[in-house]
């Protein structure tokens, strides 16, 4: 597309300058282009300096000669963060790296060959996809239990009192493929509630965020999430919630390079110390 006969300054300039002018205005006219380039250069240098500065420090206590990668369901965030400290105190040569997400996404990552050492999911169904694919070392162990609850923003804008009030409110739930979503569907069925959610989030932490940020009137989360949110939420009990219990399995991933360190993590989680930490954050324990 060649330009028509154009008396304006841009026509005489180089092709590159014209292209640059079209894209971002830089280089046309020449003077402000130079100023703009200086601004960009300074900003880039500043960003680079900031990035390099943050690379220097690492707040993990482990000296990092071995890195243990643990994939865990989002609801385990607070408990496992605390256990990370405990583990690194006990094993000074191991640096634990935790990755939290929806159990179904993590299971999919493991079966696709993600280089992780331990997997902890929020229900046996998601763990089963991994064991069926032969990606666990031995059988998984149940280490905790969790039940569900309804939370609303701290001021309860929709004035919800019980579960049947939800049908007119905007509610966030987990996608049915995730353990929290599966449990939600079971609870809705047990209570004969036909609910059309406003949104289905990928993991329970996103549901909690939607509630605490005030975007929805209510959300279905775990008891542990409600406890972690503290005064940011109001809690509504779900009838029959004791009948829908999520068993949390944990397993060492097959082919892990650090199977001993991985097994140590599982042992810590199953130990009295680990169970106490889980109980502190609201989980039901198994020992």
């Amino acid at each position: 597309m060649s330009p028509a006969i154009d008396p304006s300054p841009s026509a005489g300039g180089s092709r590159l300058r014209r292209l640059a002018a079209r894209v971002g205005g830089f280089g046309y006219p020449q003077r402000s282009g130079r100023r703009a380039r200086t601004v960009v250069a300074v900003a880039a240098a500043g960003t680079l300096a900031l990035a390099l500065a943050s690379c220097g420090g690492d707040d993990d206590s482990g000296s990092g000669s071995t890195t243990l990668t643990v994939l865990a369901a989002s609801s385990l965030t607070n408990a496992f963060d605390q256990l990370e400290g405990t583990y690194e105190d006990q094993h000074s040569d191991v640096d634990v790296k935790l990755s939290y997400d929806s159990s179904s996404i993590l299971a999919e990552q493991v079966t696709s060959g993600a280089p992780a050492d331990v997997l902890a999911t929020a229900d046996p169904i998601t763990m089963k996809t991994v064991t069926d694919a032969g990606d666990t070392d031995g059988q998984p162990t149940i280490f905790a239990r969790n039940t569900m609850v309804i939370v609303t923003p701290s001021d309860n804008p929709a004035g919800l009192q019980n579960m049947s009030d939800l049908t007119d409110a905007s509610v966030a739930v987990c996608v049915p493929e995730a353990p929290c979503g599966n449990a939600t569907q079971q609870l809705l069925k047990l209570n004969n509630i036909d609910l059309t959610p406003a949104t289905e989030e990928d993991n329970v932490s996103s549901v909690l965020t939607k509630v605490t940020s005030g975007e929805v009137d209510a959300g279905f989360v775990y008891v542990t999430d409600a406890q972690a949110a503290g005064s940011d939420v109001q809690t509504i009990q779900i009838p029959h919630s004791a009948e829908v219990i999520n068993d949390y399995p944990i397993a060492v991933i097959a082919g892990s390079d650090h199977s001993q360190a991985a097994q140590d993590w599982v042992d810590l989680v199953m130990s009295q110390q680990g169970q106490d930490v889980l109980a502190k954050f609201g989980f039901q324990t198994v020992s």
Partner: protein
Amino acid sequence: MSRTLERPEAPAPSAAVGRVPLLMLIPAFGALAILLLPLIGLFVRAPWSNIGEQLTSTGVTTALRLSLTTATISMVVCLVLGTPLAWLLARVDFRGRQFVRALVTVPLVLPPVVGGIALLTTFGRAGVLGEPIYEAFGYQVTFTTTAVVVAQTFVALPFLVLAVEGALRSTDRRFDEVAASLGASRWWTFVRITLPLAGPGIVSGAVLAWARALGEFGATITFAGNFEGTTRTMPLEVYNTYQTDASGAIVVSLLLLAVSVGVLAALRERWISGVSP
């Protein structure tokens, strides 16, 4: 009409003296490989045996219908709002024009999820503008199909504005002056002279905006939410399916790829002529 009045294309410079240099060929093939190999991988791993039932499941057809509808609406909104802005940037020399042009490119460089969070903090129910609107009218835009269109428009607008601005810059202003001297109103000149001359550029900008809107994920899932039929567009459907059924996700990905490439190929004449400098 535009073709006869423009300077004829200068002949393309021949590739150096002699053969195409290896120094150009090898990196070029590297670039092609980066673009092609992932697509080839998709095709190779696709579960061709049960592709039919995957494609016709209600989740997929609903998502496809939603994606096509919202992308088209977003493109129209971009055209209606973006063309005047592009005209201002191309034809009017106002103070702060450089700043406005840089502002238009912001959604291009912003990670889409950041765009989604920005939209949420402004138009969400607890947002800067959203909260007063909710208090006054009880209206909440998040979790509606409108929110999907807003998110898609936010990310697609720069493509349209920059393409149209480029097209308008390259059309001769003197046609406008001639028309004015012959007694045409400014609106008539804009509709009958300027727009047709910039036509190919506008079309290519619109197609780019449509394609960008179709593929939008981060801003949609953060701002509009994720619910079948209302806000679950094709990219969200792929992400959802991938959580439990990797091969199913490949099928949906191929469908999205086919739709995007199909539309772009159908408009390839204008697409190529619009994008090249």
